[in-house]
């Protein structure tokens, strides 16, 4: 029995990519990002010599938020819409395994997220270079944003394999926000009595650590992406992608038309 086929995954990823492009979701996200950058320029002028910093901070924040939100919104709708519109019947009536179907959709979304990160990064870095900022040290944040986007996309697709669009949206956004606040969660756990303390602390360790995939607060002060940090981030990010997609695949195999 064929579990997975590279040909099917590529065909489905290509179809998903084309669907996202033609739905203007990506151009909408890009437009939002450019508007934010255009706001950052006059805002920087009010900052008493901090214009480069404000452009970088706002630019990296909008790069991350637009990319992550795009993949969460698109990913949350992806599989529920396939069921609702019965396009999944069409694909799954062909010799396509459910694993290939889910991975094809996920990879199409990941490719779109990557494109969005790259286009925004080029615009942002060009603007920063024009402002005379040294962009070399800032580059380390880009692969990390890409990893965050991939983890968010995988979580959204994974949840959408068994949950409705609103539930997927809420769950993925909650994981993204909590994953950026694990320090606060551990701080809160430390103040609680046993066994809540141990339970909350354990939960904190079982969630995706988005802060590990984030340098934007320190990069403006010259912190670089060290090989150790990069390795830890890649292992953590890829593990979560695999975990989310595997869960999605298992759930998707149980789903019936």
């Amino acid at each position: 029995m064929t579990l997975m086929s590279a040909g099917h995954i590529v065909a489905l990823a290509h179809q998903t990519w084309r669907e996202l492009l033609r739905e203007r979701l990506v151009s909408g996200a890009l437009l939002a990002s450019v508007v934010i950058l255009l706001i950052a320029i006059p805002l920087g002028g009010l900052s008493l010599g901090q214009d480069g910093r404000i452009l970088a901070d706002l630019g990296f924040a909008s790069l991350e938020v637009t990319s992550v939100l795009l993949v969460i919104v698109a990913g949350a709708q992806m599989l529920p819409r396939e069921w609702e519109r019965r396009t999944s019947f069409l694909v799954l009536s062909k010799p396509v395994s459910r694993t290939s179907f889910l991975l094809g959709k996920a990879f199409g979304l990941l490719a779109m997220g990557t494109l969005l990160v790259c286009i925004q990064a080029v615009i942002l870095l060009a603007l920063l270079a024009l402002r005379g900022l040294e962009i070399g040290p800032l580059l380390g944040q880009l692969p990390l944003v890409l990893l965050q986007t991939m983890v968010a996309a995988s979580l959204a697709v994974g949840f959408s394999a068994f949950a409705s669009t609103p539930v997927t949206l809420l769950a993925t956004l909650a994981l993204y926000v909590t994953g950026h606040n694990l320090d606060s969660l551990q701080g809160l756990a430390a103040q609680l009595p046993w066994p809540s303390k141990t339970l909350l602390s354990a939960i904190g360790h079982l969630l995706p650590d988005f802060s590990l995939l984030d340098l934007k607060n320190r990069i403006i002060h010259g912190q670089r992406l060290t090989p150790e940090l990069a390795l830890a981030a890649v292992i953590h990010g890829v593990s979560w992608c695999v975990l989310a997609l595997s869960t999605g695949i298992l759930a998707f195999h149980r789903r019936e038309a």
Partner: protein
Amino acid sequence: MKPDLSPGLALLAAAFMAVSTHVLATGHLAEDPARDYRPLPARYAKLLATDFDALWADMAWLAFLQHDGAVMAMEESERRFGDMEAGLVTVTTLDPDYLAAYTFGSWALGDADRPRAAQGLLERGLAHRPGDRQLLYQLGFVRFLLLRDPDGAIRAFTAAAAPGARPQDHGIVRNAMKMAAGLAERRNDPDLAGRLWRAIAEDARRRGDERLAGVARRALERLRRERASVTAPARSDR
């Protein structure tokens, strides 16, 4: 059939209320910058920042600058500064490396006649960035000009001029040394003043800065003359 005008009237009334409350708010309620400026307490800001700390620090900084600018644009007698410290603490909690918030913030607190708060802000920065020359240099000015503490200022300027500076800090080191030397001279500490002016002269000669070398030479000459005038009567006593 007579058209039902009630939805249209309701819409007009609602639009009038919305616009008039906005006009009233901007015309009257917003006249007092101190009341308008209510920075989010640092601990909540940090909790809500969700790893966008640097961005929220920027936003808190811009809000602080807007508030400070609005206050400074008012007649001196009408100025109400509000809780500026809280705003600066929020900025520097979100980004403890926000240098402009410490340096400009300490001047702004000085303008608000809160020199102790200015000193506290810089010491808070130094706790996070020990030995930061820019912060020490600024602390020297705050102690000298706002707190009238020349000895404290000398200590801060001397620390700012400590050996081992990176090339980008050489300007601060030179200025801090001049400030420390000048203050030491005024405080009748000729040993320290002499040591500092000699170092300044040597550095100026090395860099070919004739003007500064001349200033340092004249200062050393002045010190020598003062020392001579102090020691001469003692010799005649013998």
